[in-house]
């Protein structure tokens, strides 16, 4: 429900209550005024009749359908006014009951005491209520229409800075440094909102930059000491050593190697997360797969693996060339590493997908886990366990979808080019 609709509903609800109360007031007021006016009118007629009596007119002449003149005990005091409110048949032929207002007064005229009674039919409470209800109903209807229309127009005007702010926030990116230009507004709430957003985004960007710089620096700062250690060990290898010492240096070098690879891969993952590889022009993936196959051909041959390939002509995918290389290398080297001696690899590249299928032992982990960081099979202790995590991250930042299945002794990794 839109904000303006909520306001409208509440407004109309309150208005309805007020209108009902107003209706009651109007009803009682109108009823009171109608009665008062009718009584005043009748009373003035009675006064006229009384003055006619006083001037000597006979009561018989003055009697009519509405007027009844009776003589009462002269010793009684004069009655100024007496009102009877009864229901009576208005027109005998129509047999309709109506409200009959009877007013009576008595006068001493020439030693006699006359009681003059006069009646009139007035509007019934039902009729007044009907009138009030209809009027209130119309008022409410008009209000509904006008409020509906004006709300639509005014809300668009009033909320326009808010909608603009929303649009700006939608486009907001932590990585970009473009200043956010919020619309100028005189509404205090929106001013507060814009002020708050401006500060928050500034802070978020600053924090993001700090974090990014930290991770970048940490990864760079590690490289130099690693290079120093590796160099020292390599120089040490050149000096006369016993077999035992040489072995120890070499295994130390192994660990450095591992460390540097982890560092390298994490730095790459970091860069991917920072979306530092954005491209506008698509790359021909077949141009990345073919040379890679050639590069790996000797490795494939050494493991007596048969390679089958079906690579379509140019396959354009919106992917950074460097990432295309990493993607293909990681998948292909996995297909070689997790293969069996004398097994096979099948690579197929079409306009929709890249499929890499290879023979191999069943995976030790759940298939979804294969894409998690530092997950590796026990048999490949040398591996860092970031290859597939990198593949997944590349797919995520490039809008591709990767799928891994295992059945009938075959690993199957498919990269779909449209998610």
């Amino acid at each position, binding site marked *: 429900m839109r904000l303006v609709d909520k306001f409208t509903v509440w407004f109309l609800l309150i208005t309805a209550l007020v209108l009902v109360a107003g209706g009651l007031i109007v009803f009682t007021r109108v009823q009171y005024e109608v009665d008062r006016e009718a009584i005043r009118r009748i009373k003035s007629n009675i006064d006229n009749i009384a003055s006619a009596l006083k001037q000597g007119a006979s009561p018989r002449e003055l009697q009519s359908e509405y007027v009844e003149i009776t003589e009462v005990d002269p010793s009684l005091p004069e009655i100024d006014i007496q009102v009877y409110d009864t229901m009576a048949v208005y027109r005998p032929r129509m047999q309709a009951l109506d409200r009959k207002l009877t007013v009576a007064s008595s006068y001493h005229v020439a030693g006699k005491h006359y009681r003059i009674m006069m009646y009139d039919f007035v509007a019934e409470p039902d009729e007044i209520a009907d009138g009030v209800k209809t009027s209130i109903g119309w008022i409410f209807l008009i209000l509904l229409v006008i409020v509906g229309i004006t709300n639509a127009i005014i809300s668009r005007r009033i909320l326009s800075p808010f909608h603009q702010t929303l649009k700006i926030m939608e486009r907001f990116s932590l990585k970009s440094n473009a200043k956010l230009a919020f619309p100028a507004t005189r509404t205090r709430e929106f001013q507060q909102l814009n002020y708050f957003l401006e500060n928050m985004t500034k802070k978020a960007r600053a924090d993001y930059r700090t974090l990014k710089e930290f991770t970048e620096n940490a990864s*760079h*700062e590690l*490289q*130099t000491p*690693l*290079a*120093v*250690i*590796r*160099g*020292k060990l*390599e*120089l040490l*290898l*050149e000096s006369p*050593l016993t*077999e035992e010492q*040489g*072995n120890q*240096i*070499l*295994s130390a*070098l*192994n660990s*450095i*190697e591992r460390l*540097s*690879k982890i560092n*390298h*891969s994490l*730095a*790459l993952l970091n860069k991917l997360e920072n979306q530092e590889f954005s491209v506008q022009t698509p790359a021909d993936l077949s141009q990345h797969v073919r040379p890679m196959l050639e*590069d790996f051909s*000797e*490795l494939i041959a*050494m493991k007596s693996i048969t390679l089958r390939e079906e690579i379509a002509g140019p396959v354009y995918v919106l992917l950074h060339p*460097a990432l295309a290389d990493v993607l293909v*290398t*990681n998948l292909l*080297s*996995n297909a*070689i*590493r997790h293969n069996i001696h004398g097994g096979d690899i099948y690579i197929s590249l079409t306009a929709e997908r890249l499929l890499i299928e290879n023979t191999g032992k069943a995976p030790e982990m759940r298939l979804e886990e294969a894409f998690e960081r530092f997950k590796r099979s026990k048999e*490949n202790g*040398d*591996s*860092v366990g970031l*290859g597939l995590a990198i593949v997944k991250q590349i797919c995520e930042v490039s809008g591709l979808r990767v799928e891994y299945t295992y059945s009938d002794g075959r690993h199957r990794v498919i990269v779909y080019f449209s998610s």
Partner: protein
Amino acid sequence: MKVLIVEDNRELAENIQGFLVREGYVSEVSHNHTEAQKKLTAYHYDCIVLDIMLPDGDGLNLLRFITSEKIQSSILIVSAKNSLDDKVTGLELGADDYLTKPFHLTELHARLKAIYRRKSLKGDSIVSFQEISVNTDTMEARVNDTILDLTKKEFDLLLYFLVNKNRVLTRQSIAEHLWGDYTDNLSNFDFVYQHVKNLRKKITAARGRDYIGTVYGFGYKFDTYQA
């Protein structure tokens, strides 16, 4: 060969210098931008090893200085950043190659030699030792006059051995040299073993001497002193 090492980390500079000295090269070290600029104006160097992240100024600026002064040295950039942009900028500014830290000293040496051959020794594309010679232009390797039938990787491996004679080459450094960054995922050093085995077989088959030996179980050495 005369080499200038521009590297702010003294230990690392010492490593490189130590390695190159044993190769019989004359090498000097600058720890910062200003010092390097002074040395470059005063002396001539065949090769420059340049760390592009220097404390007193961007190494890329030093590169710009080298180009503007028309200094004819081969330049090898060494960087802790494995960033494509830096690589491209560096090469566009006139560097000859780009190496990411942490590097193997033998790899650094191979790269230095390669750019030196390409730039300073124009046309000299033969690397040889005794009966073995390798032509980096035609990609031919010979033992005496017999042409060896080597795969691309075996050829690269032989050249790597010839450049780093009498050095212990670890399997990692060989793997990284042959497959570059891709070794991230190819820690199976059996492949290195296979390549070395095949290369040795092919050399001995062509009646060459088997200079390549195993050291400490995990490393290899092209030993010129062996009987």
